[in-house]
Structure formats: C-alpha cells, structure tokens
C-alpha cells in the first residue's frame, strides 16, 4: 500500500499491538502527529515533558512486559528524552522511542533544532537508527521492536528525518526480521547446566541470588518452584522484589547496601551462589575482594558480557533464566533438601538476631510505618512505583511485594523524577489496579508537571510523599560521612502540596498522624483522582542496615533496637 513515512510509523505501532503511546510534538515530528490525529488504532497521551513521556512508556513496559513507545521531536525534544532512555537502558527495559530529525538535506548543517541524536544516545540505547531513506523505514521499525524485546531487552531509538515522514512509498511491514549479526542465546548449554546441578547437589550452603533478569524473563513461577523443590534460601536484588513473594519462607530479603542482615550474611557465607538474572552490581556486592569469598558461582544470564565482568564465575550459563530453569528443574528431582537444613537454621538465627526493623513512634509518623501500613491496606493489589532516595529503599525493604512487576523503580540509573510518570504508564496499562507512587519531597518536584497529565487523562495515581523536608538520602550520607554538614539538602522551604495538587486538577491531603494516613488513603482510593498524600515523617530517620560504599557486605550499620537518645529530631 502507498502511504507517507508518517503513516508508516502509525501503521507499525498498530501492527505491533501497542495501545498507548506517550509523547510530545514539535516541528520535526509534526507529520507523524498529523497522522496520529487521523488514526484510531492507538491512543496518544500528551505528557508535559519529554522525559516524562519516556518514563511513562517505561512504566507501561515494566508493568506489562510489553514494549513501551514514546515519541518526541528533534533537538530539545530528543535531549529531554535522554534521561528516559538512559533509565530504561540501565534496567534493560524494552522501549521504542521515535524522534523527529531535521530533513536529510539539513543534517550536518547545525540546522534549527538539529542535534546528533544517534551520537548522543549510542551509549544509552541497546541500538539506534538514523533512517536514511523511506525504503528502509518499515524494516527499521520492525527491527526496532524486535531488538527492544528480544535477548537482553533495552531501549531502541529511531531517529526519522522530517522529509522521510512526508515522502510517499510502498508499505510492506515485514513479518520477520533478518539480522544475521544478532543472535541472542536463550537455551543455555546443557553440559553447563548439568555441571551446575551437580554443584548444587554437592553444596552445603547454596543461595539463590535473584536479579531483575528474573522479572524480565517472567521466570518467577519457575524460581519459586526451584526454591520449593530444593529448599534453598533466596535473596533478591532491588530489581527483583516480588519474584519470590514476601510470604515465602525461603526468602531472606533484599541484599546489598541496604539489604537486611540475614541476606548480606548469607551472601558472605554461602558456598554456592546461584545467580539468576543478576549482575553483581556494586550496590549489591560491596567491596569486591571481600564479596562471597567462600562461594563458587553459577551465573545464569542472557547477556554473556555480564558473566565474569566483575567476579570470576565457575559455572557460566548464557541463556534466558526461564529456559534454563525448565531444563534444570527435572535434573533436581533427587535433590536432598535436608542437606541444606543446617544452613537454613544458621540463616534463621541471623534473621532473629537482626530482623529488618525500626523503632516506631507515637509522636511522629515513621516512614517505614507508612510503607508497612500501605502494605497492609492495599498489599497485593497495588502496583508500587517509586522515585529515588530513602523512600525508595524503605519501600523495597518494607513493602510486602507479592509478585514481579508489582514494584517499579529506577534501580540502575537511580533517576529522581521517574516515579510519577512511570505510575501514569503503569496505571494506563492496568486501570483497575491501585497505583501508588512512593516518593520524596525532593524527587516529586522533578516531574511534578505530570500532575496535569494525570488529571487530564483521568489517570488517578496516588503519590505518597514521605516528606522529611530533606534530600533525605544525601542528608543521610552527610550525617554519616560528612560530619553533619548539611550542604544544600535542607528542603525546609516547601510548596503548599495540597494547593499544588489542586491547582493541577488533583486532590491534596496533609497527613501528620496515623489516623490521618488511613483516612487519606481510603479517601484517595475512593475519589479516583490523582492526588498528593503529603505525609510528614520523622526528619532524621536513616535507612538501615547500611553497608558504607566500598565496604564489605558483612560490615553493616544496623538499625537501633530502641530510639536513640540525643538523636537528631
């Protein structure tokens, strides 16, 4: 069929089954927007900033497992989108971002709103394309979606010069792709899998180390089955919360810089790490030379470059976690679960010794209490997004995540401003679910304009602001490592949160007591409007346990058992 490049873009999006696109128009992408106006195959949501468009598509992708799509114009539209691309890249999230570009004849002339988009985005995309002719556009669009979702997923940028969107040509959307230089390995080497199984059977203190790849691979049922069958305890990374399910007796918790005592000790004492889609990030390992000193390592990862990047691996298995586990599970039929009993007992004692805890208060809301309360009130049903800081860590530590994709946060890049737009994306994907963005008084202002988007499109996400009048996480480091010099972290000067929400068509609640917290949440769910719950929390609360950056994982600062006297208030 004959059509314009702009129409081809729309047809490809429809052919890929995408129902919602997030974006922001401008000169170079206007022809595409003109076609969006004429079609009814997908809806377009106008965010109020390109960064938010990409985060919203990202939230949509994380919640559903499908490819998210965002659209921006050239120049500043694209540069605004870069943080969104980088955020998705670091967490391996499948996105296709389409950017307008100046016409082919102007490329390289420093034309109005020209910027080298493929050059800038090269290090923060899985792959990118500058379309050079109309003929190659259908193939590139097809490849973009395929590359985004296959292998180790990631964001793909398609940069389209304006004249190509105007040109008319034949549209044949390919059924399949042919990229001979790209062949991700899914299966996992049988011999290696057998060897790994032997190692599991011989180990005394094995440990499942579960990462974000387990979520991306939709492997949670298989992983729970593996744990159940072998009775091997498990730790989750920040990105894997929900895979085991909070109630699972074999789950020790989250490990790493803010991991709980039992998890970090388990990692320090294990004799066999079974790594499933995790990548030994520095926030997880702490000091590498002290990390898991006694352990052999089985490393299952779809990206060979992750294997042996930071630690030496004894049983490398390149493959998709689900595919590998399907092969591994039958080989474990005769595993002797009693073999690991002593190990489980040790870990149980560690957890009793230093459970994930905090000292509650009757005078002021503790942020940890707020998270736990949310868990009690909305629990399994809700999708939780977050921004970056203390609130994010408390959410990861204290919320009872029950399934993967219930917890959506920027782990790898740590992007403040991610939470609200990501919540909008997730809520659009699952309108019937309660979607709560757990945020801080710093982070929420980094994409606060999206209140308007949420109000306009009736995407009633609940923003729970754990308000400590600080850039809390940075303040915490200043407390511990900079002799309490609170350089540029005091946020005492605050907006009127309630008025701010109302000004954008939402609702605001000021919460200072536990009763008000319950009442506000109940009302927020009932009102079905975007809202701010401005929760005044203890200002100087610290996220604990904490492994100081670069320290050994077993050297944790532990939470106080009673309220410290003379602590800052």
């Amino acid at each position, binding site marked *: 069929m004959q059509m314009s490049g702009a129409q081809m873009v729309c047809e490809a999006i429809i052919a890929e089954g995408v129902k919602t696109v997030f974006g922001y128009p401008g000169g170079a992408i206007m022809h595409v927007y003109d076609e969006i106006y004429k079609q009814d195959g997908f809806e377009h949501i106008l965010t109020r900033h390109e960064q938010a468009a990409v985060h919203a598509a990202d939230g949509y992708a994380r919640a559903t497992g499908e490819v998210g799509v965002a659209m921006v114009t050239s120049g500043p539209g694209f540069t605004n989108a870069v943080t969104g691309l980088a955020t998705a890249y670091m967490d391996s999230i499948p996105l296709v971002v389409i950017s307008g570009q100046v016409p082919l004849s102007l490329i390289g002339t420093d034309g109005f709103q020209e910027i080298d988009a*493929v*050059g800038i985005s*090269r*290090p923060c995309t*899985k*792959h990118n394309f*500058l379309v*050079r002719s109309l003929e190659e556009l259908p193939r590139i669009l097809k490849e973009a979606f395929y*590359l985004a979702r296959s292998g180790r997923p990631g964001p793909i940028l398609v940069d389209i010069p304006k004249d190509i969107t105007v040109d008319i040509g034949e549209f044949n959307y390919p059924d399949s792709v042919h*990229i*001979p*230089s*790209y062949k991700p390995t899914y299966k996992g080497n049988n011999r290696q899998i057998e060897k790994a199984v032997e190692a599991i059977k011989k180990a005394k203190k094995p440990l499942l180390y579960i990462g974000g790849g387990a979520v991306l691979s939709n492997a949670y049922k298989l992983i729970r089955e593996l744990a159940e069958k072998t009775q091997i305890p498990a730790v989750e990374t920040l990105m894997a919360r929900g895979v085991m399910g909070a109630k699972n007796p074999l789950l020790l918790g989250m490990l790493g810089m803010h991991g709980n005592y039992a998890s970090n000790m388990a990692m320090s004492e294990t004799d066999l790490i079974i790594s499933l889609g995790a990548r030994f990030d520095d926030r997880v390992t702490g000091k590498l030379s002290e990390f898991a000193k006694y352990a052999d390592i089985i490393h299952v990862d779809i*990206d*060979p*470059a992750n294997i*042996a*990047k930071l630690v*030496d691996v004894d049983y490398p298995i390149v493959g998709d976690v689900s595919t590998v586990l399907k092969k591994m599970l039958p080989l474990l039929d005769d595993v002797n679960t009693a073999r690991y009993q002593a190990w489980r007992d040790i870990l149980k004692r560690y957890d009793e010794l230093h459970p994930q805890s905090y000292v509650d208060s009757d005078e002021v809301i503790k942020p940890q209490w707020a998270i736990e309360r949310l868990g009690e009130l909305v629990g399994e049903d809700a999708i939780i997004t977050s921004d970056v800081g203390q609130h994010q860590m408390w959410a990861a530590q204290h919320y009872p995540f029950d399934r993967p994709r219930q917890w959506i946060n920027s782990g790898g890049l740590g992007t403040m401003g991610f939470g609200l737009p990501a919540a909008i994306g997730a809520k659009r994907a699952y309108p019937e679910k309660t979607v709560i963005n757990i945020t801080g008084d710093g982070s929420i202002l980094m994409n606060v304009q999206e209140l308007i988007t949420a109000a306009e499109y009736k995407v009633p996400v609940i923003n729970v602001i754990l308000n400590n009048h600080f850039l809390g996480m940075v303040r915490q480091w200043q407390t511990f490592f900079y002799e309490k010099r609170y350089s540029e972290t005091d946020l005492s000067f605050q907006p009127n949160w309630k008025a701010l929400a109302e000004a954008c068509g939402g609702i605001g609640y000021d919460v200072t007591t536990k009763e008000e917290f319950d009442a506000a949440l109940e009302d927020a769910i009932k009102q079905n409007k975007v809202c701010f719950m401005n929760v005044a929390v203890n200002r100087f609360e610290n996220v604990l346990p904490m492994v100081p950056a670069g320290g050994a994982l077993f050297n944790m600062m532990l939470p106080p058992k009673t309220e410290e006297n003379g602590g800052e208030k």
Partner: protein
Amino acid sequence: MSDTNTRRVISVIVMNESSVLARVTSMFAARGYNIESLTVAPIPNSDKSHITIETQGNARVMEQITKQLHKLIPVYKVIEHEEMVEKEMVLVKFPIAENLSDIASLASAYNGGIVNVGKEMVVAQVADEPRRVKHFIEAAERYNPCEIVRGGVVAIER
C-alpha cells in the same frame, strides 16, 4: 585471572553501514579500553567490513572487550588473534640531501624501498611485522626523517 597487561590484536567483522565504526570506537572510549591502532576497510564482494584493532589489557579486560563488541548489533564476529600473520605499513619522508642508497638498502632490509622521489624529498615505504616496523623507524632516525606515517596493524589468522 591474570592481571598482566598484554598486547592483543582483534579482528572485528561488521556490517558495512554508517556509524558502525563510531559504535565500536565509542564502546572502547566509554568503557575506558585502549586502542593502540585501528584499521578498517570493506571486505571485497560483501556487505561487510573488517576492522583490526590493536589493544592492551589484562585477561578480564580482553574478555570484556570481546563480549562488549559482540553485543553491538552490527558485529558479526570477533576474532581474538592467537596464531596470526600481522603486518603494518609505514611511509617515511626524507630530505633528498640524505644518503639515498643507505635509505634504500635500509628500507629493503625491512621488505620495502623508495617509492617516490621528488625535488626535495624522497618517500620510503615499509610493510612488515609491527615489531620490525618499529625497528625500521628507529634506524631511519639517523637520516633526519621529516614525516613518519604509520598505517596501523592488519592481521589474518594463520
């Protein structure tokens, strides 16, 4: 794993498309890996190009370089050369006043010769193993070379 830095020559077979070289070199730059020399040319009768990279690093770095190269979408194949034939070319310009027959015999000792004689300058060319090219350049210093252009390593597995 060995921590000692060793010199390595890698061949990378890529799709011959725009910006593929930028993808390869920016990967090296972004991850802090070294490029000592680099040559690139299309492979005859194909839609592919051959990039030869001379680099340095310990075993872990070398493994990462190979894997990260593989990860680039337009990369077909990465060959970490073990048993290779390796050649490098160099052009050296000398003032015509220097002893031309000395220069000619020096160059021929390194598989080369004088390839151009102008009014004021002569140009000698040598193509040999990189180690020997280095020796040639050292020896040529004696004849006051005014310009030296090295070509970078090309290699082929034996």
